[in-house]
């Protein structure tokens, strides 16, 4: 201490005069370091922004095409000779003609349409239907079974074009790329061009992509994300209904009532650990406990919801405890001071004040669960599953279904390039949901959160 002051007094004379206006070397160095640090920060931000923009551009440019679809209009003569030879008009008799039996009717309808429009082609009549989705037969059959009086009449149907034709109108398929294709020939595209000129082939917005069900590998044009959206909805319902009460009850007990001892410390540490457990682990747990021991049905949104509840609980507990902690003790003291019991002080005062934080945490936990795929792989929710609409609420929980991210994963794996486009489209829908949830969380926080 004395040495230092001695140094200073001797140093005082030799030290250059400093000015606030003229920067000395050391200050310049420090300022430069600061400027450099800021530059690093901006660079990091720029890299982040670049990737975000690249990602969004990729998603939007690849995915928006999935929202439109090509349709073909044609007059179909529902030949009574084929569908109902005895003229019974009985739905059961007409149902005996399977979708394969409608192939000839569709071929005839296409030929008729071309002749009526004066379009000539060298394609054999039997091969014309490669332009149409193989779902067209099912669509016409369903219409006939719904209204058997249509048999014998000529009805105008609007059917989906095949994924190759759809790809042609979207610029994905060209005559060159079809050169070695077995499913469609370049000559078909000439017919498509002619039909388009005649106004019979049209590409427009496709609600069925948002509301529809999954389709098999051979007809991507028919696939939609609607049923898996319902699956996701029921899963989120299970997660919300189970994890919110359990999570809030746990946090209130741990935060307000539990004694501070080794046991509660141990629990606290483990809750934090659970939040970091990879989600696939919960999937294995779900398979072992809910399906193999509790005998709950496979592929059911109920089981998916239970597994995701396990995953979401730690997130909710941690955020609830944080928001309970942020309520100042004076509120509790005041309530206790006017004679409230501890429980009254918590439920009447602390919990309402902590609610915005709790809800924000819950919504973010749900958003995380909504985008989760890995645990669903193990409980049978990935595959060709989301093809039936559930009928009723109980069915919604129990009948096999998929979830949006699982459906996207499934589509991305399929061979037909048209499914790739649909996977991107599914990502857009999933992102819209996540964005909505995050915006709600932000609004809640803005609107109700109090600062003390």
């Amino acid at each position, binding site marked *: 201490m004395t040495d230092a002051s001695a140094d200073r007094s001797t140093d005082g004379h030799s030290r250059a005069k400093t000015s606030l206006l003229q920067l000395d070397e050391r200050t310049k160095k420090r300022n430069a370091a600061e400027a450099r640090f800021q530059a690093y920060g901006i660079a990091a931000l720029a890299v982040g922004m670049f990737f975000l923009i690249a990602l969004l551009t990729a998603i939007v440019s690849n995915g928006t095409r999935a929202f439109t679809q090509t349709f073909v209009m044609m007059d179909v003569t529902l030949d009574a000779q084929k569908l109902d030879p005895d003229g019974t008009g009985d739905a059961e008799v007409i149902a005996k003609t399977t979708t394969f039996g409608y192939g000839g009717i569709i071929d005839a309808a296409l030929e008729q349409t071309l002749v009526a429009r004066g379009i000539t082609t060298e394609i054999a009549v039997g091969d014309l239907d490669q332009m149409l989705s193989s779902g067209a037969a099912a669509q016409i059959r369903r219409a006939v079974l719904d209204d058997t009086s249509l048999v014998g009449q000529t009805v105008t149907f609007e059917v989906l074009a095949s994924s190759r034709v759809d790809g042609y109108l979207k610029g994905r398929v060209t005559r060159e790329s079809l050169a070695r294709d077995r499913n469609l020939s370049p000559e078909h595209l000439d017919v498509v061009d002619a039909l388009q000129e005649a106004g019979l082939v049209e590409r427009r917005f496709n609600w069925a992509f948002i509301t529809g069900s999954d389709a098999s*590998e051979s007809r991507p044009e028919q696939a939609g994300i609607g049923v898996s959206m319902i699956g996701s909805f029921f899963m989120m319902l299970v997660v919300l209904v189970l994890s919110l009460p359990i999570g809030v009850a746990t946090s209130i007990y741990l935060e307000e009532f539990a004694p501070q001892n080794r046991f509660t410390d141990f629990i606290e540490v483990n809750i934090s650990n659970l939040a970091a457990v990879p989600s696939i682990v919960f999937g294995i747990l779900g398979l072992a406990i809910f399906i193999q021991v509790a005998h709950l049905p496979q592929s059911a949104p109920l089981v998916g919801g239970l597994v995701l509840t396990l995953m979401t609980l730690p997130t909710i507990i941690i955020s609830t405890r944080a928001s309970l902690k942020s309520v100042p003790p004076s509120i509790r003291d005041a309530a206790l001071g006017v004679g409230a019991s501890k429980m009254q002080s918590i439920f009447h005062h602390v919990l309402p004040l902590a609610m915005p934080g709790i809800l924000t945490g819950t919504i973010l936990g749900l958003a995380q669960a909504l985008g989760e795929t890995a645990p669903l792989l193990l409980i049978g929710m990935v595959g060709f599953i989301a093809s039936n609409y559930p009928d009723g609420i109980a069915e919604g929980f129990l009948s096999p279904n998929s979830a949006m991210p699982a459906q996207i994963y499934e589509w991305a794996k399929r061979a037909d390039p048209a499914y790739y486009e649909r996977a991107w489209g599914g990502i857009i829908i999933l992102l819209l949901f996540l964005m909505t949830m995050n915006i709600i969380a932000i609004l809640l926080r803005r609107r109700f959160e109090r600062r003390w």
Partner: protein
Amino acid sequence: MSFVKLAASALAISAALATSAAARDNVQVAGSSTVLPYASIVAEAFGENFDFPTPVVESGGSSAGLARFCEGVGENQIDIANASRGIRAGEIEACAANGVTDIIEVRIGYDGIVFASDINGASFAFTPSDWFLALAPMIVVDGAVVENPNTNWNQVNPSFPDQEILAFIPGTRHGTREVFEEQVLAAGCEATGALEGMIASGMSEDDAEDACIAVRTDGISIDIDGDYTETLARIGSNPNGIGIFGLAFYENNTDTLQVATMNGVVPTVEAIASAEYPVSRPLYFYIKKAHIGVIPGLKEYAEFFVSDDMAGPSGPLAQYGLVSDPELAATQAMIAAEETMGDM
């Protein structure tokens, strides 16, 4: 109080669900991802034409599917396992240990395995020997077993272009890998005389056979554990690569891929059906007989799968890339009679 309401409704829902885990009314299928496209096409058409709900088809691989299949009998177990290979004796034993005894084996047709590369790259005409010389870790040169020195295709076969060897082959969990090892690598090993050479140099016969189907690990051959879409993406980013695909996948992506011939034969449905094209395998599914009559629509689904309308030479499965089984009629009769594997 909303909290009490929430808790009460949670309890009510879980109670309702616990009681309503009722009878299953849809067929549940799991297994090979190679069979999945075909099974999904059949399931969709089945839902459209019958009054039963559309069956649920999961993927996950032949082994995983058969393991789940063998877990037991009951509504909570799958009814059908799809497989891109025959069931193994060990799996039949595991099944029997869990009470799954009467199994119906259904062969649905054949799947061709093709070698394809970037459409703008060089064309290849392979023989199994070429693949063995390209991918084996040890080959025989002048009677001595040496580490494989080949890095470019023209070293393997002078008629090939001077292009680095880069192969994307299915990982070991895929059934396709086994077919590649047995029908290409082992065949090539024998054809080049490497098998004899290895035995002559003092290896035991078993070791030599293992060495025949081994794959070099110096980065020239890359195992793909994902699906064919991953292989396709790898070729897209590396035009020198040659990948192994199922015939159906290749036929859906002819705009980016070109296929190589094997022994001079172009892989087509016809060439595979006539066994001219050498690399193919049968596809199966397995039914639990105990579930027939319990799960509605199970037998109808199986019969519909192998019906001429679906699996015949001009049906939608053949259209997608399945090589139709010439003995389909026998399979149809077998399902109608519910013949199990033991009866055969």
